């Protein structure tokens, strides 16, 4: 995991430079679309407790999919989220929450997820790492539109999708991949938070 974190830090530095660069085109959509009710789920948190998306109603939530032994792209996404977490200041936890759902529930037990969260500096007051049965995870990722296939070597190839859910539980936007603009992501979280 240490090597993965090292790689992630390098990538994050590049991402941060990209985000603050003047060349980057900043898209400013006024109001995010309302795609529909966000798929609900009840899974298990890193503390081994029942965790339901519905319990976060009233907060803006970013839902993403990762797995802890991923050595390629997940170690990029989680530090990106961690970077935004730090930028959100007091709003994080109180008004904005992150949920990272594993796509490898066989290996990602609550204990493993907790260690992963700590390694990436996640503030668990506002960021939950959740797991569940294979069937439950498959159902959730399918309803969010995430494709995942486990290989014989244990790696899980999956699409990367980060979804913003508003305070009323409506899915507002999804970010495909890990190359998205962190400033735009943060701005979208805050714009949804400021809606009446």
């Amino acid at each position, binding site marked *: 995991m240490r090597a993965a974190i090292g790689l992630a830090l390098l990538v994050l530095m590049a991402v941060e430079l990209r985000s603050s660069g003047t060349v980057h085109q900043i*898209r400013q*959509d006024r109001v*995010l*679309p309302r*795609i*529909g*009710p*966000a*798929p609900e789920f009840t899974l298990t948190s890193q503390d081994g407790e029942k965790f339901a998306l519905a319990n976060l109603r009233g907060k803006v939530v970013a839902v993403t999919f990762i797995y802890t032994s991923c050595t*390629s*792209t997940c170690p990029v996404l989680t530090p990106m989220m961690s970077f935004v977490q730090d930028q959100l200041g007091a709003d994080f936890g109180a008004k904005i929450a992150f949920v990272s759902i594993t796509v490898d529930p066989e290996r990602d037990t609550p204990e493993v997820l907790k260690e992963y969260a700590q390694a990436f500096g996640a503030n668990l007051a506002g960021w939950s790492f959740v797991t569940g049965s294979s*069937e439950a995870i*498959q*159902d959730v990722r*399918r*309803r*969010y*539109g995430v*494709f995942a*296939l*486990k*290989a*014989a070597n244990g790696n899980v*190839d*999956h*699409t*990367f*999708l980060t979804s913003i859910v508003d305070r009323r539980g409506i*899915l507002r*936007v*999804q*970010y*495909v*991949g*890990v*190359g*998205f603009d962190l400033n*735009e992501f943060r701005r*979208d979280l805050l714009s949804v938070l400021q809606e009446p």
Partner: protein
Amino acid sequence: MSGLQNRRGFLATVSSVCAAGLIGSAKSFAQEAPPETTTLRLAKIKGICIAPQYVAEELLRAEGFTDIRYVVMESGVPLSRSLGRGEIDFSANYALAHVVAIDAGEPITVVGGEHLGCFELFASGRIRSVTDLKGKNVGVPSLGSSPHLFLSAIVAYVGLDPLKDIHWVVTSSIKPMDLYADGKIDAFLGFPPEPQQLRAHNIGKVILNSALDRPWSQYLCCMLAAHRDFVRKHPIATKRALRAIIKATDFCVNAPTRVAQQMVEGDFTTQYDYALQMLKEIPYRRWREFDPEDTIRFYSLRLREAGVIKSSPDKIIADGTDWRLFKELKSELKG
């Protein structure tokens, strides 16, 4: 190929995934209205650059499609004509082929962009630019084929007359790539997996790479289209199919080895290494950077100046495009 999972294991995985998709299809993505039809027929061609639709099956099932079929056909203009005849419902194809079909009156609607950078122009050592092709032997599978149309547009763009200035070499029995590799023609336009195949054997020189060289790199190469009636009668299904295939482009970016493997297992190609190389070379992640209408306008202009089509770009756009769903998706799917 050593990294390939065995076929039985792969099919078992896919079957379980698909079964789950079927079981849960009533509660599809974000609980939008379900698609108006659960059947979707897509093209299966020799060209492998349309990989996203080859690996989108689970995502399509998650969108509510339960009967997904791949219909074998020829790529390029024949594919667009098959769409027009209703033999398939939805597919990616070369933008230029869609334009030719729309000009011919085929009832198709281009609904979105997928990727750029499919084709590369290979030429012999003494040829340095497209203008050097004047008077040279250029191989194409047939007159009117996609490579011929693309090349006509390319040479017309630099002021050459595709009818007079190029000596087209047409052979039905030998592929232009083989003629080029044997030194029997001066140039040919390669589409995946041909460029990857030549590079693997260190053969040839590229004088135009559509992923890198302007103006071609500023426009999409492959775009998604459906039969006009399919879009009109099934707008939700169209949007869902579009979303699944666009999401699958991310899988091509993040898991190219798995996608190449899946293409082999699904019998979309036999050449794992070339498929993998192609997936690494084509910039699938850039689908949202380009305005699809700009691409249709660009190719309409090029084909018109090459004398291939008669319609104006505005007429092509009015008759054969509808970007509303793609625009919605662009605002819903950032990246």
